């Protein structure tokens, strides 16, 4: 039988160490909504989302109350809209009307974000993909809760450099279109390489075509719980360090698995996966950076940071995999800058640079995340950053992503405030040497060879 010590440990993790379930995300296929008429398409989309997700938020709250564990977000992901809207949309404006429908549906059911305003263009682009990508700045400016993502490459297909060049410009335009809100639109836009079909985390969630009609995914969290556990083994060797991370990740994931199964049963929607990510928030004590510092780094960004992160990421997976029957999504430690107080502090003290962050993305999920850069950063430089990050993903057979915000009107040394879970960020410098001629070449970078690994 459960004893008082175990009960207290769980409740301390929840109350003081900020253990929570970060999100219950319902994936909804919109493929059966396809229609030649835009009006009809919009109606079908609204009806299907509001019908399937009607009870998502109340059921989430019910589970929260019964188990006493916070479920921070309830969200929806849908089939990439470029696929759904292909038959009805003739121009970017047509796609914007779908974005508005998605926003309306999200507000009706009460979810805080809906992802899937997406295009998958890892090898090439259809006319619909192109129109959707061109509509992103307006779509994100005209909506509150819609999130967008574009997959520009994969290990199997190589990198679509035309799409990468385009995304540099689209990110700049999105920053301009949402200039009065600190270029917030860019915080809702992710550029992926090897995007997973079952990611529950925003802004990059979409419901892949390999998924069923509807599915429940859960994203766990718990950097604070890992950090507290490590405080108790300060100075001990790596074996003990790894074992401690693994045990904590196991406990954290079991909560996610339980919530996922309950949500799935109560909503009558199949359970998909648990995403084993350590997702930080700007709250003090809920930081991935602090875990790395607890391991013995003076500041995140110091030599040794990449090794510490690699260890953390691997142990989280090893502990988590045993705790859940199905693991998927991004699964790893997130290192967003604006959403992690420890990362913000490291940037402010000059310990953490864009280049070090790029190195860190080689060993963790997901990529250059929530990084604010000067508003006048050229589109080509942003494309270059995307290409670098996508190349890391392509060659290492992992998911990588870029969510970068060239904040309109802001310069180095200034700060941008997004509020809520998105936090705030100091503007970071970008290498000012040009990659214009490289980006402008056009075409594709071929898929890498999978032998002769060096």
């Amino acid at each position, binding site marked *: *039988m459960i004893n008082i010590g175990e009960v207290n440990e769980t409740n301390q993790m929840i109350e003081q160490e900020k253990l929570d379930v970060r999100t219950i995300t319902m994936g909804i296929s919109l493929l059966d909504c396809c229609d030649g008429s835009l009006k009809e398409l919009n109606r079908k989309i609204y009806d299907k989302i509001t019908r399937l997700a009607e009870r998502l938020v109340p059921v989430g709250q019910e589970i929260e109350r019964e*188990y*006493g564990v916070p479920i921070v977000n309830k969200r929806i992901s849908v089939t990439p809209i470029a696929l759904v809207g292909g038959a009805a949309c003739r121009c970017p404006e047509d796609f914007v009307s779908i974005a508005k429908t998605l926003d309306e549906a999200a507000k009706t059911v009460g979810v805080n974000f809906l992802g899937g305003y997406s295009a998958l263009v890892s090898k090439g682009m259809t006319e619909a993909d192109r129109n959707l990508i061109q509509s992103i700045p307006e779509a994100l400016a005209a909506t509150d809760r819609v999130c967008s993502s574009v997959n520009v490459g994969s290990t199997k297909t190589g990198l679509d450099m035309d799409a990468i060049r385009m995304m540099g410009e689209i990110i700049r335009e999105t920053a301009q279109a949402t200039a009065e809100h600190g270029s917030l639109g860019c915080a809702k836009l992710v550029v992926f390489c090897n995007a997973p079909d079952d990611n529950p985390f925003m802004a990059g969630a979409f419901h892949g075509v390999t998924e069923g009609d509807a599915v429940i995914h859960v994203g766990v969290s718990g950097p604070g719980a890992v950090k507290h556990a490590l405080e108790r083994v300060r100075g001990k060797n790596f074996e003990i360090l790894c074992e401690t991370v693994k045990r904590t990740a196991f406990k954290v994931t079991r909560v996610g698995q339980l919530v996922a199964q309950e949500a799935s049963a109560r909503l009558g929607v199949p359970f998909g996966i648990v995403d084993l990510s350590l997702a930080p928030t700007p709250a003090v004590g809920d930081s991935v950076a602090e875990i790395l510092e607890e391991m013995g780094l003076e500041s995140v960004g110091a030599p040794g940071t990449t090794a510490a992160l690699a260890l953390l990421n691997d142990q989280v997976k090893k502990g988590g995999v045993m705790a859940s029957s199905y693991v998927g999504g991004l699964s790893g430690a997130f290192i967003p800058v604006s959403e992690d107080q420890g990362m913000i502090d490291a940037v402010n003290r000059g310990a953490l640079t864009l280049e070090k962050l790029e190195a860190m993305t080689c060993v963790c999920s997901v990529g250059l995340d929530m990084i604010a850069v000067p508003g006048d950063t050229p589109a080509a430089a942003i494309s270059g950053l995307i290409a670098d990050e996508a190349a890391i993903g392509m060659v290492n057979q992992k998911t990588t992503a870029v969510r970068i915000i060239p904040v309109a009107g802001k310069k180095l040394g200034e700060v941008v405030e997004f509020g809520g879970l998105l936090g705030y960020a100091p503007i970071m410098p970008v290498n000012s040497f040009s990659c214009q001629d490289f980006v402008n070449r056009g075409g594709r970078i071929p898929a890498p060879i999978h032998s002769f690994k060096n």
Partner: protein
Amino acid sequence: MKKTIITVVGKDTVGIIAKVCTYLANNKVNILDISQTIVQGYFNMMMIVDAGQSPKAVGELAQDLNVLGEEIGVGIRCQNEEIFEKMHRI
């Protein structure tokens, strides 16, 4: 039978157990086990209960007990046992 765990943590005072038990009796919740300690003047109690006969759902009991805890000046949590089982047992 789905068991529910009630924990009470806070500054020790007269009548904590009485008030919690009265509420549980009024709502047809059967107490299966109680363990209680005082650590540095702080009251720490865990009850294992069966809320199967209660007209109220676990979520509702949790909300009521939360309010009762505020009245007494202690923190009361009421959670489905499964969360502890899953976390601490393989």
